[in-house]
């Protein structure tokens, strides 16, 4: 069973019981504008919650994606190196950034579910 959570920084986290896939929400993609470059982390690196792991450059500015929890990066979406525009076009699908094995899956609990996230956007 998949668990989907959202961070206040507009990242979506999808946990399949083993790894967490990380991307940005449609709201974030829209705010960011056309993405022209994505810098991805190395696979098999250990990260600490809050580490800058991905840099997204849009036509307007650079934005960071932070590690949502402690863990190890297991896979990156190398498709984005040649097609960074996938982040803008398909943020919830082909535009994902990386997968990580969380040190403690319970860390997911601190994040919002879909209803909470919708309320968060509406209020911001």
């Amino acid at each position: 069973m998949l668990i989907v959570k959202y961070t206040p920084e507009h990242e979506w986290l999808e946990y399949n019981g083993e790894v967490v896939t990380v991307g940005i929400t449609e709201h974030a993609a829209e705010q960011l504008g056309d993405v022209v470059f994505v810098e991805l982390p190395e696979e098999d690196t250990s990260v600490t919650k809050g580490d800058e792991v991905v840099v997204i450059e849009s036509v307007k500015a650079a934005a960071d994606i932070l590690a949502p929890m402690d863990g190890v990066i297991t896979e990156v979406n190398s498709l984005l190196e040649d097609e960074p525009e996938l982040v803008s076009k398909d943020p919830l699908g082909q535009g994902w950034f990386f997968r990580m094995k969380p040190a403690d899956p319970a860390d997911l609990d601190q994040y919002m579910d879909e209803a909470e996230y919708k309320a968060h956007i509406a209020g911001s």
Partner: protein
Amino acid sequence: MAELRKTPLHDLHVELGARMVPFAGWEMPVQYPSGVMAEHRHTRAKAGLFDVSHMGQLTIRPPAGGGWEEVAAALETVLPQSVLGLKDGRQRYGFLTNDQGGIIDDLMFARRGDHAFVVVNAARCDVDLAHLARTIGAKVTIEPLRGRALLALQGPSAEAALARLSPEVAGMRFMDVRTLTLDVAGGVPALVSRSGYTGEDGFEISLPAESAETVARALLDMEEVAPIGLGARDSLRLEAGLCLYGNDIDETTTPVEAALEWAIQKPRRRGGDRAGGFPGAEVILAQLEAGAPRRRVGLLPEGRAPMRQGTPLRPEGAEGAPVGTITSGGFGPTAERPVAMGYVPAALAAAGTRLEGEVRGKWRPVAVADLPFVPHRYRR
């Protein structure tokens, strides 16, 4: 903070779904729903309509009984351009200089019979007006035009689009200026110049504020015309190698450092009929002959990571302090790669010179390149 000013097209921008942002004291559209990339490409492929009503429009008129000669002579005391040499109905690019040879603002000036029509940057309009009043205010009448809008229609289809409202525009060439009647709502008088800020052919249209929305809607109704925001305006001018005041030029950069010497005509240079006589002439005229210690150049970052304004530059492989800085940088949608410009020492200014720029703590390769990145397509 003071309330943001709104252009006559504000409601139209909102209706079109624009994202509005503060810019130089104005609330301006940065992009429409199609996004910066699509807007940029549309302008280069067809025609883009820009609201540039935030820019300052002014007239400079002769004293009673005087004529163009008085206006031109006064302007030549504040600009290094040849103003007396400007024919009626023609426009020139120029800049106000300070005593150190720095640039107070860059502008367009046109000769309209006995007076000049001038367009200046929004963020510098007040500074310019104070400067002009202090320097030439006793000799000529400087009048900011209130209640006017300014539209830019840019791109290869601009002529065909605007010609539907006034066939006469097809007969204009680059930097011509004419008073025309646009065939909209019973006729709208407009001052049209064949010029712009994208590197494309196109027009800038000064018109009464109350007619701006009608004219904008008439143009936007045409198949080839789409609204374009400030985001694409910036990427278009960057690819065209055109300076943005405040980024690439300011009071500390001279025209020669900024590679703008092409805009200083012969009569104002040493040996010319009217050499010097403008603020900073000593510095600028000397640099025109001997070169400047630093130079604005085009820069092509390797790879796909953009290098933005403020990125420090150093020679390839050199440790130590940076020797230059990027002043404008981003992704060029037509160039399909990151593009930038910035200042480097004269010895490192030749095209092909290999440098490094620091992005997020890492020095990455970048090469000096000729400007523009996308060839100009003016109708000369």
